[in-house]
């Protein structure tokens, strides 16, 4: 207990130095936590994807559509329980700065396939029965102050014109990882308009979404779907929802890797700073450690005091950093909601923060402990006076 007291008191002998080191660790852990959260947010779509859903798209490219007639064939395939479709609409709300994902969907089947989008039954009915109806995620509605019944105009970028929608419902996510920043409206509305204005673009969907009876059949169903439409006018590429999401991540993988590298560089920098602090500390106290050794304390007592002090400083900084990560991430998430629909600090980030703190504490203590343990007592005592 007394040695623990020595350890804690030693940590505060140079208050300013210790305080600055703790602040440094806090900022490093905060930066590390936020960067890891950015990486997690990048993969949020992947994490939220279901193993029981497949995505079928045009084999040439995602920008090419598929005929609506495929639906009948798809629903009859073994292992397919439900089929829905979605078109990336790419509409702009007032200005391009107000970006959010908006899709034309087949509403009934879509909401069945995505039970994580939770709608009030009344709002759901209203949405299904209004050709110009739309639903928005809770965060998106909060962002623009939308209420049910509001008229929302979107300026089409892929589909020309200004499109008027009536907000019929606001969905909330069943999980914290569910994207609440999306906007959905009826594909029928889009298709009817296309039939009138640009008929060659009518009766087309962007992607098909297949609900499986058994997730284990994903590979088999994918093969069957693509084989069915082989040599057709629009060949398909079917993959799991996770693989589909990962294909988007792959486009920006270099950025994710860069963020991951930077996050570890931050830890390396703070490791050097703490190691320097501990080296200075141990050098100043080498005489005291010699006194401890003289009194009969063994090498593990000395190493324990140095590592203990190192861990005390790093764990204090880490705890503060982790505590700050949550409110700062929340604030970041609000500011960046159009880029990161979910910006939650995941448990793995906290584990990584803690592991980083332990590694910093350990590495920072190794050299000073080795020095204090191996120095001859007589030499250590000469440093006093």
């Amino acid at each position, binding site marked *: 207990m007394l040695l623990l007291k020595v350890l804690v008191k030693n940590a505060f002998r140079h208050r300013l130095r210790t305080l600055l080191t703790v602040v440094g660790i806090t900022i490093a852990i905060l930066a590390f936590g936020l960067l890891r959260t950015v990486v997690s947010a990048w993969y949020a779509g992947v994490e939220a994807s279901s193993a029981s859903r497949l995505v079928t798209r045009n084999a040439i490219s995602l920008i090419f559509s598929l005929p609506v007639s495929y639906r009948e064939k798809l629903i009859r395939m073994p292992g397919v329980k439900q089929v829905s479709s979605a078109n990336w609409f790419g509409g702009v709300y007032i200005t391009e700065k107000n970006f959010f994902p908006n899709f034309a969907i087949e509403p009934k089947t879509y909401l069945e396939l995505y039970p994580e989008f939770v709608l009030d039954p009344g709002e759901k009915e209203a949405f299904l029965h209004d050709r110009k109806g739309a639903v928005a995620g809770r965060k998106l509605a909060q962002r623009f102050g939308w209420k049910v019944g509001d008229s929302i105009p979107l300026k089409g970028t892929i589909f020309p014109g200004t499109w008027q929608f009536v907000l019929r419902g606001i969905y909330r996510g069943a999980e914290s990882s569910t994207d609440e920043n999306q906007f959905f409206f009826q594909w029928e509305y889009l298709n009817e308009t296309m039939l009138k204005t640009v008929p060659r673009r009518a009766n087309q969907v962007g992607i098909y979404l297949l609900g499986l009876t058994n997730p284990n059949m994903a590979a088999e169903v994918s093969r069957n779907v693509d084989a069915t439409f082989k040599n057709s006018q629009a060949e398909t590429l079917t993959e799991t929802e996770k693989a589909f999401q990962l294909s988007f991540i792959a486009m920006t993988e270099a950025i994710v890797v860069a963020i991951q590298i930077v996050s570890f560089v931050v830890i390396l920098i703070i490791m050097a700073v703490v190691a320097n602090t501990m080296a200075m500390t141990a050098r100043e106290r080498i005489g005291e450690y010699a006194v401890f050794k003289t009194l*009969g304390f063994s090498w593990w007592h000395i190493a324990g005091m140095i590592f203990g002090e190192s861990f005390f400083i790093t764990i204090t900084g880490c705890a503060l950093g982790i505590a700050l990560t949550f409110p700062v991430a929340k604030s970041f998430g609000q500011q960046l909601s159009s880029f990161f629909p979910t910006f939650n600090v995941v448990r793995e980030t906290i584990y990584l923060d803690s592991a980083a703190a332990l590694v910093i504490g350990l590495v920072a203590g190794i050299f000073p402990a080795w020095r204090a343990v191996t120095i001859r007592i007589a030499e250590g005592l000469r440093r*006093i006076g």
Partner: protein
Amino acid sequence: MTDVSDATVTPIVRLRSVSKSYRRGGQIVPVLEEISFDIAQGEFLALMGPSGSGKSTLLNLIAGIDKVDSGAILVGGVDITSLSETELASWRGLNVGFIFQFYNLIPVLTAFENVELPLLLTSLSRRERREHVAMALRIVGLADRMDHRPGQLSGGQQQRVAIARAVVTDPTILVADEPTGDLDRRSAEEILHLMERLNRESGKTVIMVTHDPRAAEQARTIRHLEKGFLTDVAA
């Protein structure tokens, strides 16, 4: 040089052909050469000699904080030159009380806690430790300063705390390296008187290194070291 005393009482410390050298800038500098002598139980020995004569090195070897190049040192029948570092640390904790020139107290601990430190390595209970510490501080006349930190005490008081720390484990020998070197004359006399009293009343074997003839006068035996050799015996 061989100089084994014909001690009439049992020797507590026995040195046999002890040699020690240091390496400085690639050169080997001999410090002690073939030293042999005994120190009797209850002795108060002063080791004197000019700077660099090897007296502090000799004290460090007897106290087990440095290793001999050759020879043997027996303290209380234990050949400390054959002990491992860990065994030696444990042995020091039980058998040697240290008094340093610069007191070497731990500045973040109170006088009481500084004295308690060596007892942490024993099997004593907390209550027993408190009793031992209180007694040691009473012996050195600092019972009323036990909650003071070293920085709140004078040099003489700090050295008395160091003496309390040295005697609290009831060690076999007390070693003191220039214990009055950093004190004014009055404080130095108090410390020397305290050490003399510990030797006389408690029968503690005291081995003191000093270059101060006044300090050495307190000892019952004075030995001189010159260039690594014992040169004479004075009582």
